[in-house]
């Protein structure tokens, strides 16, 4: 099935930028956020960028249609950046929109059609109520059986989680470990939505209750706190509030250039050596519920193109839209055998100082998940880490030669994997 593919020519990552993720006022539009991320990206191009060198834009955006009442946003963005009449295309692949936009930009350069391409994504989600956001995200579910059953996005991942728990003995505490780790990492990322660890959230709650004269609760540790229904209510059993990524606003973008001109922009280009993308049927039509076939397929394509194995990956940003998704990503990307990822979590192997740091940015869980912005935000984190520019969350003990990002659309109906290499 897998055909050996190579890029037509080398592609380099030469810049990356991001907005702070969080809740912006209603007046702020996604296009404004994108401009902000673009200005941040420009600062990262260490030999400077003449905007006129950019030849095209691929923009990931899930639903400005329903979130903001605006469509045709790629043209709107290129106009705001002062880059008309350059071509611009919007990619909608649910939560994988900008991961796929990145891949399309890579393909545009590899094909020889463009030399310098901007890829990015944006979403302004917080103008809607929680129930409206739930509905809008749920539109990416299967409309024939899933949606009429009352399934939601947390619901479908919760459904998958029960299958994973039944098959491998995964526990609610294993899910909590993902949230605890990613919140701890986000506390070190000033661009994250929640820059606070769960331990500190717990301490603040105790202090605020004490200030009101309420006797302090007797939470022993973070797990105890996360088991408390009053602090961490069930959203879709077995997933609780702290198992879910955050609804927020944000934008991110990256600059890609043909390998032979990459050093016009930077002395330290990173190279995009592998890219893979796959699709899948609704969950009910999959032979296996407790794993994502599209992730395995996209990863196999990317590893083959990059000529590396899963064990060669030094750092990864993976799609933890829900805590169970990070556990499945660790398995489906081939980092761990099915059912073994939870042992790595229990041993801290994927912490910043572990043998395979995962989601050092804080992940979708705590950095935030402004849907369309997520894929290129993952690339942004790899860019920072691999160039040694990640500040307090920098991975220090090992050289980061290979970085991988996995961006999933909906419940694994799309998956895209991109691999970066430092030479």
């Amino acid at each position, binding site marked *: 099935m897998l055909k050996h593919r190579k890029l037509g020519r080398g592609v380099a990552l030469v810049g990356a930028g991001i907005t702070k993720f969080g809740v912006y006022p209603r007046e702020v539009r996604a296009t404004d956020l994108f401009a902000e991320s673009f200005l941040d990206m420009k600062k990262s191009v260490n030999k400077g960028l003449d905007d006129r060198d950019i030849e095209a834009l691929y923009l990931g955006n899930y639903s400005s249609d329903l979130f903001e009442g605006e469509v045709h946003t790629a043209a709107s963005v290129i106009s705001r950046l002062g880059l008309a009449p350059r071509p611009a295309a919007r990619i909608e692949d649910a939560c994988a929109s900008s991961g796929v936009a990145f891949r399309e930009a890579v393909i545009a350069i590899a094909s020889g059609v463009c030399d310098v391409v901007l890829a990015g994504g944006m979403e302004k989600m917080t103008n809607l109520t929680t129930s409206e956001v739930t509905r809008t995200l749920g539109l990416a579910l299967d409309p024939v059986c899933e949606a*009429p059953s*009352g399934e939601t996005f*947390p619901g479908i991942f919760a459904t998958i989680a029960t299958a994973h728990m039944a098959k491998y003995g995964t526990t609610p505490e294993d899910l909590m470990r993902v949230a605890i780790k990613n919140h701890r990492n986000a506390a070190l990322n000033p661009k994250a939505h929640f820059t606070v660890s769960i331990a500190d959230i717990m301490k603040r709650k105790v202090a605020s209750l004490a200030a009101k004269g309420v006797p302090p609760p007797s939470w022993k540790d973070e797990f105890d706190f996360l088991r408390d229904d009053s602090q961490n209510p069930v959203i879709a*059993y077995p*997933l609780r509030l702290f198992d879910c990524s955050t609804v927020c606003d944000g934008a991110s973008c990256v600059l890609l250039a043909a390998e032979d001109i990459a050093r016009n922009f930077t002395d330290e280009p990173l190279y995009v050596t592998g890219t893979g993308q796959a699709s899948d049927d609704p969950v009910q039509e999959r032979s296996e519920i407790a794993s994502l076939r599209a992730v395995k397929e996209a990863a196999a394509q990317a590893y083959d193109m990059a000529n590396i194995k899963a064990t060669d990956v030094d750092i990864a940003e993976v799609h933890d839209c829900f805590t169970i998704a990070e556990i499945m990503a660790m398995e489906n990307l081939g980092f761990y055998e099915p059912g073994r990822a939870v042992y790595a979590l229990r041993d801290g192997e994927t912490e910043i100082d572990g043998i395979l740091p995962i989601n050092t940015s804080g992940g979708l869980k705590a950095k935030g998940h402004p849907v369309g912005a997520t894929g290129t935000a993952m690339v942004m984190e790899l860019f920072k880490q691999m160039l040694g520019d990640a500040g307090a969350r920098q991975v220090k003990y090992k050289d980061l030669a290979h970085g991988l990002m996995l961006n999933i659309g909906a419940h694994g109906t799309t998956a895209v994997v991109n691999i970066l290499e430092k030479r």
Partner: protein
Amino acid sequence: MRVMAEVNEFNKVAGNKLYGAAFRQALKNGKLTVSRCLKCGALFLPPRPICPECHKCDMTITTVKGQGKLVAFTVITAAPPLMLEEGYGRDNPYCCGIVLLDEGVKVTARILGVDVRQPEKIKIGTPVTLEFQEIVRNGEKKTHLAFRVTNSPYAVQ
């Protein structure tokens, strides 16, 4: 004459039992349809016009007995507008899940007859039986695909 011919073309598409419209119409009439590939024998729910196994277009419609077992589920408290309108939500959670039918195909549906207050007691592998849940709201009747847990110690009537 030309107009009649066009209407017939449209009705042919709407009536094609391998397409979504006919599947939904059948559900309204209390029938769960699947398609079987006449070339390779594979079953599909919902019906498909093209077989993803052998890529032939030789499909026939068949029905299922409606017996199966629960293979994955959730109990949802943060409900979308569709379910809020039916009275579900934080104080009235609901169960949905994936059922493996005896015929070997799976389907996502509402799960009835379980104690949604104690989701940890809902067991994967529990036998379930097809049931069509009729919801009448503002004078409009809607039929939803559901399965009921019947012969389990945790079944709730």
